[in-house]
């Protein structure tokens, strides 16, 4: 296989990572078609991390953190951004070497850079999940979050998944030496129509920030939260963990919007997080039951 050339723009970075992880035997999936706070919420990570079946996958996930919106005025913060995620379950013994290979692939030459693994324990209160791992630093900048999943939905995992999450914008700023996300070349600068990140997303940041902070109808959002919570529970009863989990994702994002609107007090905040966690836990348990049942069927 010919080595892909060093990426020249944002989309090259995505394509290179996809090609690299495909070469490592991963499925290359598409983003989950719902609003979520991070790539971890994708069923390909949260649910697939559970159960006895091996699973290798990689995908880009558009991620939304309503509170991080800055109306497009902060060069380093967005309410909508991209994560690239690779998940390898069970984690192979050479997973770190494979990860370092991905850095070489995107043009980070480890003979001139300083790569460091700095302790970072990951925890998602809403997913009831935690793992141990590192922030990976390149010359002092965090370029990746690396986690060995230990628990998801409050359930201890059967096989440990290694989760590798690249913050794409930040990584691209580093690779292309840009001070602002909005200055990143999105497609090739040599294209007939060269476009920057700002051309694609600046207006979106402005409008969505206004929505998140000022205009979102909070009564409606509270209703949506309650509805999603109810629907999730109903689907759990019907033993349909996947539709149930989508309602859980919906509740989680709705909570994030309410939080950004500043209508949830500090004490209530904790109780909302616990409500989402209860949903996630129920979904994970229901999903795990289907997985174990499938494995037992095969064995029988």
């Amino acid at each position, binding site marked *: 296989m010919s080595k892909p050339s060093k990426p020249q723009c944002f989309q090259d970075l995505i394509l290179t990572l996809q090609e690299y992880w495909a070469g490592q035997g991963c499925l290359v999936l598409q983003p989950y078609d719902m609003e979520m706070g991070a790539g971890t919420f994708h069923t390909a990570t949260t649910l697939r991390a559970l159960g006895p079946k091996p699973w290798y996958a990689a995908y880009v996930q558009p991620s939304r953190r309503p509170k991080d919106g800055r109306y497009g005025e902060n060069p380093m913060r967005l309410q909508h951004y991209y994560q690239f995620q690779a998940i390898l379950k069970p*984690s192979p013994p050479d997973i770190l070497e494979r990860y370092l290979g991905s850095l070489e692939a995107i043009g980070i030459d480890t*003979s*001139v850079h*300083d790569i460091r693994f700095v302790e970072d324990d990951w925890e998602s209160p809403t997913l009831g999940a935690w793992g*141990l791992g590192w922030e990976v630093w390149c*010359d002092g900048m965090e370029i990746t979050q690396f986690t060995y999943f230990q628990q998801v939905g409050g359930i201890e995992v059967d*096989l440990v998944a290694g989760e590798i999450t690249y913050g794409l914008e930040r990584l691209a700023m580093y690779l292309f030496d840009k001070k602002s996300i909005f200055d990143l070349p999105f497609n090739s600068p040599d294209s007939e129509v060269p476009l920057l990140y700002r051309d694609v997303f600046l207006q979106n940041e402005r409008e969505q920030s206004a929505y998140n902070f000022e205009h979102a109808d909070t009564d409606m959002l509270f209703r949506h939260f309650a509805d999603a919570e109810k629907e999730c529970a109903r689907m759990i009863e019907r033993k349909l963990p996947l539709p149930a989990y989508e309602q859980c994702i919906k509740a989680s994002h709705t909570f994030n919007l309410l939080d950004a609107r500043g209508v949830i007090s*500090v*004490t209530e905040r904790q109780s909302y997080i616990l409500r989402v966690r209860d949903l996630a836990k129920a979904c994970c348990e229901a999903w795990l039951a289907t997985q174990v049942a499938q494995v037992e069927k095969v064995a029988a």
Partner: protein
Amino acid sequence: MAELLLEVRSEEIPARMQTRAADDLKRLVADGLKAAGLAFTDARAFATPRRLSLVVDGLPAARPDVSEERRGPRVGAPDNAIQGFLKGAGLSSLDQAEKRDTGKGEFWFAVLKKKGGPTADALPGVIDAALKALPWPKSMKWGSSTMQWVRPLQGIVALFDGKVLPGQIEPGGQMAPVTFGDTTRGHRFLSKGEIKVTGFADYVAKLEAAHVVLDPAQRKKIILDGAHKLTGEVQVTLKSDEGLLEEVAGLVEWPVPMLGTIDAAFMDVPAEVLTVSMRVHLRHFVTTKPDGALANRFVVVANNVARDGGKTIVEGNERVLRARLADAKFFWDLDRKTRLEERLPALQGIVFHARLGTQAERVQRIAALATAVADFVPGADKAQVMMAAELCKADLVSGVVGEFPELQGIMGRYYALHEKLPAAVADAIGDHYAPAGPNDRCPSAPVSMSVALADKLDALTSFWSIGEKPTGSRDPYALRRAALGVIRIVVENKLRLPLARFFKEADLLDFFAERLKVQMRDKGVRHDVIDAVLALGNEDDLVRLLARVEALQSFLGTDAGKNLLTGYGRAANIVRAEERKDKTLAARIASVPDVALLELAEEKAVASALAEVERTVKPALQQENFSGAMQALAELRAPIDAFFDKVTVNVQDRPDLRLNRLKLLNQIRATMDGVADFSKIEG
């Protein structure tokens, strides 16, 4: 004599866990060796980010056969005793035991023989047990493993006398066993392939050649020497930071210090902000100019010998630092556009504790306390105390503190100075969390002391009021530290603060007393002496209390003090013994002795000495002349000694004399107890 070399290699171990883990490995293996009857001369453990290593020197090549004797029950003892003896010694019948006459009768003896053998046979078990028992603060599974380690386990070197020990660790699941071997790996980027080692010296040398410095102390030295050289060349001084040095030494196997430059645009941001940002986010060491101010150079320690001499690494670090500082500067600039007073409403939105309301409510309580405390702080300007107390928490809602919570207080001071508030107010805002511990600086300016005391007293009384008191090792709200803070501010500044005036809870004063004892013990003050003074009760003026303690402790160090204490003990013992026999006695001997019944010269002398002491001690105590009070007490010594030499207290045929003498003894006790409760003093 032979050497054991053990290396346990894994993916990157968190820096903060390495030292402890190396010590634990050494301890566990050493304990295992001792339990196996294997003596050794020396054991040393080391850690790098990717390995824990241990070398044990001076082990014997083989263990000799050993025999151990156990004495059992007497011959003819009951059957259950015999059976217990046989079971304990692992014998099946008395045929395997011996009868011996010990001179005190015939006893059963068991002679247990332990087979020796090659040391190498015992070591794998010792290593296996040590690795399984090693306690990581946090550990994990990986792949399909069922065992836990800090991060995935990758390899084990186990050599005894140059030969590989048989053995392996089974991670479980579908995972291949990690077999004991003689190969390791070097630096993650600067070394390729496996390295075969034959013993510790060879191991250290080959690791070094493979760009791994095994000894953390050596890595620290390389970092410091390199950093001093680099900073010296540009006439700046490395700021000493032991905690950061320790951490950085745990992040690198091959430290390469490099010098970077802080962009001039950020040099007007407060030094504390720059320092925290560099230290926390980037693990950069800061440097200072000859005048002590922050210099524009930093030291970063890379874990790589870069092909370009480090140019890319330094530029990368400078770039990341620029982005970080741009963030910090953005907040610093923004924060200064809002006056501290304007931030106060936002404190209503911050919950201090679910049951104790918001930070705004806490600030009100602190302000009320601070002005009340200020009455007892000489030179405290009440208006300034009020202002500082009201503003002391305002920086919690500033941008910089939002990013760097550890800069609370420090930033408030900067914003206050920026607003041109009085310096005493700004300093009080900056100082009010101090002292943060026994070694932290203690506020000494009047306004600062008032607010710092109020901050801590409020925390103590508030948490006390909802029953959140520290228990055992649980002290989530750092109330012991708060009490110690109060004690330090009061004592070190000799403030005459009547503590009890500031709270209702009686047991809070006891809590202070406990903390005071702990703190004073570290300074060589006897806890029983403190108890003797505390027993007087109702003393909430710590300065006065300690003056009395000091006078008493030095008095007890003199001959007069020691003898008087003995006399007191005899008097008190006699009275106590008699009181036990006769429940009505205590009431009958509470009055002063009848002068007419004082027959002997010795008892008259004690009575007049007591009268003299009563006359001189009271004013001395009132004037807080505690050493004077002790001197007055010392006058009792000679008459009391003479009294016990010559006078019989329990005269058989003269109940009137007996009662009067008991009154005299009781009066000795009462008079001395007025100065301190001498019954608390330990011999």
